[in-house]
């Protein structure tokens, strides 16, 4: 008989254990739903739907939770002090990230599967350490099953940044199996602006048409065309397209001596903005001066004026051509030489 009570004890013990464990489990899921609710609340507080994280919230939502979590986080690692470095494009990317977030939230009706967050470097350095972020730009996805922030989070590849929010969406769709849907970009002009612009345009176009029909526009003034043509020429030979496409700055600050500015970059593949405009000016000014001499100076009556002007023009042109040649040799490293008969050597 003595065996029974023992068995009963065992049963009771097991039962109580089960109850406790069930309690524990429900407590866990409750806290998870609390977390999700908190995230949703935070999300609704921000305008674009990107939750701003810091060290404490990172530990709360990620580090102290156990995998699998009911949500994934896509985190944009931001650094305010690097915003002025245009080559990193942090500001631009952050904006696109915001677009992605707001579009996702709008398309998925406040889904609780994925949240978009950003962290600032100065505020939360330990989180950056936790994720092992070494370079910018960095966008990381912490999946539901990620245990270690450093090893299991997936970094978005550089190639996904290139096409802005649309390509980021591709990354998200590929990794989380969620659909982002179309990106909702704000129109270039808001409705209010449009209500102002459209009537102005309409009114202006009336005048424009009248002017065209009465032939009073700049269109018929050759000087305007001339100025335009010379400007396009100046703009192109100065390599401005290169500066626009490559986002080149006008000048650089010397790394060794911050008080110095670098205007000229050695190496033919790259040029700085100011450098290009300076050379473009030199390219253009010689031709303009030559045209000045051949087309305008010949009409001047006074011989001394002619003489002085010509000497000035020749000096400036000579200097400009010389300057370009020497700068070109310095920049490219080419040494142009003539070929003489070998007897002369």
């Amino acid at each position, binding site marked *: 008989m003595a065996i029974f009570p023992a068995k009963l004890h065992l049963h009771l013990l097991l039962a109580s254990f089960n109850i406790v464990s069930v309690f524990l489990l429900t407590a866990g899921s409750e806290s998870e739903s609390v977390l999700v609710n908190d995230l949703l609340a935070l999300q609704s507080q921000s305008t674009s739907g990107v939750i701003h994280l810091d060290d404490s919230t990172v530990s709360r939502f990620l580090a102290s939770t156990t995998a699998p979590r009911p949500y994934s986080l896509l985190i944009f690692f931001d650094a305010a002090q690097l915003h002025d470095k245009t080559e990193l494009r942090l500001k631009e990317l952050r904006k696109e990230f915001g677009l992605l977030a707001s579009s996702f939230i709008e398309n998925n009706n406040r889904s609780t599967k994925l949240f978009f967050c950003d962290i600032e470097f100065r505020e939360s350095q330990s989180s950056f350490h936790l994720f092992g972020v070494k370079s910018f730009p960095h966008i990381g996805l912490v999946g539901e099953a990620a245990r270690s922030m450093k090893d299991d989070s997936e970094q978005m590849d550089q190639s996904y940044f290139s096409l802005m929010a649309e390509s980021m969406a591709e990354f998200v769709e590929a990794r989380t199996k969620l659909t982002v849907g179309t990106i909702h970009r704000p129109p270039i002009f808001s409705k209010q602006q449009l209500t102002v612009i459209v009537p102005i345009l309409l009114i202006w176009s009336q005048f424009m048409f009248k002017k065209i029909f009465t032939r009073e526009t700049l269109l018929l003034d050759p000087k305007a065309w001339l100025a335009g043509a010379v400007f*396009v020429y100046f703009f192109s030979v100065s*390599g401005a397209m290169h500066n626009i496409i490559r986002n080149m700055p006008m000048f650089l600050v010397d790394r060794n001596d911050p008080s110095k500015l670098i205007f000229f970059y050695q190496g033919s593949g790259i040029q700085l903005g100011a450098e290009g405009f300076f050379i473009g000016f030199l390219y253009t000014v010689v031709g303009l001066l*030559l045209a000045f001499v051949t087309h305008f100076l010949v009409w001047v009556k006074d011989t001394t004026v002619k003489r002085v002007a010509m000497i000035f023009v020749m000096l400036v042109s000579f200097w400009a051509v010389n300057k370009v040649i020497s700068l070109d040799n310095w920049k490219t490293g080419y040494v142009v030489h003539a070929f003489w008969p070998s007897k002369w050597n």
Partner: protein
Amino acid sequence: MTPPPSFCISPKSSLPQSTQANHLNRNVNWPSMAAPETSTAIAATPTTNGTTLRHAFGNVLSFFILLLIGVLAFSIRLFSVIKYESIIHEFDPYFNYRVTQFLSKNGIYEFWNWFDDRTWYPLGRVIGGTVYPGLTLTAGTIWWLLNSLNIPLSVETVCVFTAPIFSAFASWATYLLTKEVKGPGAGLTAAALLAMVPSYISRSVAGSYDNEAVAIFALIFTFYLYIKTLNTGSLFYATLNALAYFYMVCSWGGYTFIINLIPMHVLLCIVTGRYSPRLYIAYAPLVVLGTVLAALVPVVGFNAVMTSEHFASFLVFIVIHVVAFVYYIKGILSPKMFKMAVTLVVSVGLVVCCAVIAVLVALVASSPTKGWSGRSLSLLDPTYASKYIPIIASVSEHQPPTWPSYFMDINVLAFLVPAGIIACFSPLSDASSFVVLYIVTSVYFSGVMVRLMLVLAPAACILSGIALSQAFDVFTRSIKFQLPSLTMNSEVDEQGSNPVTVEGQTEVTKTDKSGVTLKERPSRKNKKKEKEQLEKPSVKSKAEKKRLLVLPLEASVIALLLLVLLGGFYVVHCVWAAAEAYSAPSIVLTSHSHDGLHVFDDFREAYAWLSHNTDVDDKVASWWDYGYQTTAMANRTVIVDNNTWNNTHIATVGTAMSSPEKAAWEIFNSLDVKYVLVVFGGLVGYPSDDINKFLWMVRIGGGVFPHIKEPDYLRDGQYRIDSQATPTMLNCLMYKLSYYRFVETDGKAFDRVRRTEIGKKYFKLSHFEEVFTTHHWMVRIYKLKPQKNRIRGKMKKSKSKSKSTSSSKRSGTLKKNPWQ
């Protein structure tokens, strides 16, 4: 300021042709200022023998100058032949050469229907329908002509010298074009400048047998004929113009530049009130005939009417008809009636235009790229390519140029062009406005893509030629009329007569415009008479007027010297560029060192080995860069080539090169590949070898086959092949084929390109065997080992045997198997 619409001037004005002769006469030495004098033309005096002689002399002189310019254009491009040898250059020219060979051997019909099974195995490629046939047909015709004249030149020789010959043609075409714009003096200067402009030399040295070689000639010639039609209003030239355009379409994809530039000019003329019947004749036949002809070229086909690149021309075609109609109505109605009619006509015209535009927009919007090809889009929006099309953005010749590129490619012309632009505006004619439009668009496009510098070069030459010849004109005139010996017998009160000359000159400019724009052709008999009548007085009065527009003598002399110096610098630069920068054929390499000249002829060595030692149907795999050369020189079938039309196929080869040996063997075996060719520069320091291109293979391979991941080949984001390299990198096929037995060369396996010792020095190949390595190790050819027998016992046996025996013996043992 409004220029009078030129159609108001009676088309029966009598002077033109004689003035043209006048141009010739005066402008051999002092070009371009020549202007017809209408007011003095009436006073006819008997001609002297002197002026006729000067005419004849001027004509003969310009003929010989042109001949010399042609010789210059041809000979400056021969540096590559003299320094290296008469050989086709680089990659694409080899394909063109092969096509030309096929054409000369099998005739045009076979060529038109040619399906090439030697490339893109097992897919093949339709050649006849996918190439611009202009270049091939041109060279083929030249070869056929020479052979029928019993001049037995080889096809290769003809191909090598096609580009220099067409450069000479191009400079003559430039002469014609510039002559139409600003007279023969400017024409000669422009032709001389074009003959040696570095940008054009870079694409047309002897051996550079590519489309651009003939296309630039076609481009300039088409423009010349357009301007000629515009000046004469002759349907004959309009027809020729359409034919020249057809030749351009046959030759180069850049023909879209023409079919957009000419409509732009027409639109510009209309907007600025310069519409004339000549404009209509110059434009309408070109669009109709040109489009029909363009559609005949298989590679263009229906694109000529269906892509947005051509829509501008159709739109302007409609606009010009509307405008022509308006002017017609204006002509037959009284002003009052016209005013009433204009509202009706304009509104109807606008409705029609709107409807057509709406249709066009709908058509364009329905296509995914809005009907524009990526390249054209990146021209309109320069940042487009860098954002959306990395494959276009990655090509080096699609980069935006920096200022040194301009100095390298058009040199001092960059300084002269603004002066030329201003010269074109004083006075502005239809022809000169076209040249201005040409330079503005081309300089903008060249700013977006360095490759289009080639289109800019002729425009820069034309405008610089105009500027130079005008400057020479002014300075030499100043010297001529102020030299002490001359001033004695020509004392003119400069101060007093100045206001008169100003007036006279403005009149001159006005009449000049009508003179240039309105070149009607009187009958030849009349022409001669008029010529005689006009010459003397016009020359005389002009001389008087010019005498007053002078600059100080000594300043003019110095300015002249400076201009000559500038020209001299241009010549030195061009010769240097032709000799040093643009003449390397890149198939034979040379290097100068302290112990003399080294020649690296490894590529041809390897291709010769392939053609002599392999079976004619064997398939050779290599990275796509070498596809054209392998088919042309070794006559072996390749898997991929430089016509990168099938990305998946290229990715397959990329994946094979990035995979470990066994996987690579399986891929290659599935493609029936027998030999694998790799280019390796580590021994001699040749930087554009396969190891340096390898990351592209990984990227392109990974783009289609995701199991190839770029990070696997990078250590901390860095591409390296030394001991720090990743195991994936050290085990991939490309690494192994490149560095196999490399350690035997110097004992350390030091790679001279990457400047480091390689990571894995001693290894054996299990699935490939080395069959040939060239003298400098630049090309290495491997053979796929035959598949092993599957019978277990036998495999073990052969394995144990192979361990002890060399590879040749092993193949001997395998041959015992009757099924192999």
